[in-house]
């Protein structure tokens, strides 16, 4: 069973992830893959508080996450992966972690980003990372809430490319 879902979310575990997707997906463990959070007790405390009762939480840096998943540590569990950015997933996939699909949730706006959807904002480097994930066979979708249809994220990116030209 192991990985049942993977999500990109700049806010990691928050209202939507904790209350909506966790209820819908029914994971037994959320693994936050984030190098900075893995080093910060304050961030870990905040993530722990946001995680619903009855769901276990791991906050791991990318290398440790890949190692522990590949060591079959979570094979008997239902794991929901959450990371802030696509490059984290690219590193996991390159390390051999079997991720078939990623839901691109929230990537927040900065001065450098452009908007793909209301909640997804990217720079050129992100687009390249998404293209690489796509070429490695990872299906990228954008689905805000379970009731919405899952949009094909690469098509959204292509639409963005076209509108630029």
């Amino acid at each position, binding site marked *: 069973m192991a990985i049942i879902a993977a999500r990109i979310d700049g806010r990691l575990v928050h209202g939507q992830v904790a*209350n909506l997707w966790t*209820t819908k997906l029914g994971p037994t463990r959320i693994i936050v893959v984030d190098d900075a959070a893995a080093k910060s007790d304050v961030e870990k405390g905040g993530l722990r508080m946001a995680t619903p009762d009855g769901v276990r939480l791991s906050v791991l840096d990318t290398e440790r996450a890949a190692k522990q998943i590949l060591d079959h540590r979570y094979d008997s569990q239902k794991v929901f992966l959450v990371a802030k950015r696509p490059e984290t997933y690219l590193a996991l996939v390159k390390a051999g972690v079997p991720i078939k699909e990623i839901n691109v949730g929230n990537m927040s706006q900065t001065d450098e980003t452009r908007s793909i959807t209301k909640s997804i904002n990217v720079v050129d480097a992100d687009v390249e990372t998404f293209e690489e994930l796509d070429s490695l066979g990872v299906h990228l979708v954008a689905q805000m809430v379970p009731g*919405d249809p899952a949009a094909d994220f690469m098509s959204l990116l292509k639409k963005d490319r076209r509108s630029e030209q």
Partner: protein
Amino acid sequence: MSKLVLISHGDFSAALKASAEMIMGPQADIATVGLQPNEGPEDFRTKFEAAIAGESKVTVLADLKGGTPSNVAAAVLAQGGDFDLYAGANLPMVISYLNAQMLGAAPDLLRDGQAGVVYVNDIVKH
């Protein structure tokens, strides 16, 4: 079809719906009724009865026990109204309701509403 009706003093109920939608996505089956400063209980009752009319399974969350919205709804209930009425509405209750709808389960609004009220310092400072 099940319907959730949020009732409040002023615009709390409309904002509560908007905040829930920010987390849970758009919700077609939530109605809101706000008692405005220039309105009396009779005005509110008219709007409330319109909001629940023709619905078969209605859950009502009022903002404050003892306040006019809750009192009016309680009077409608006492006179044979067919709905579940809770007072002390909070966002955890709305989320609990919506999650139960999604899963086809019965929500425990009292439990989830109370479980969402915590003294965060006790958690942060262990």
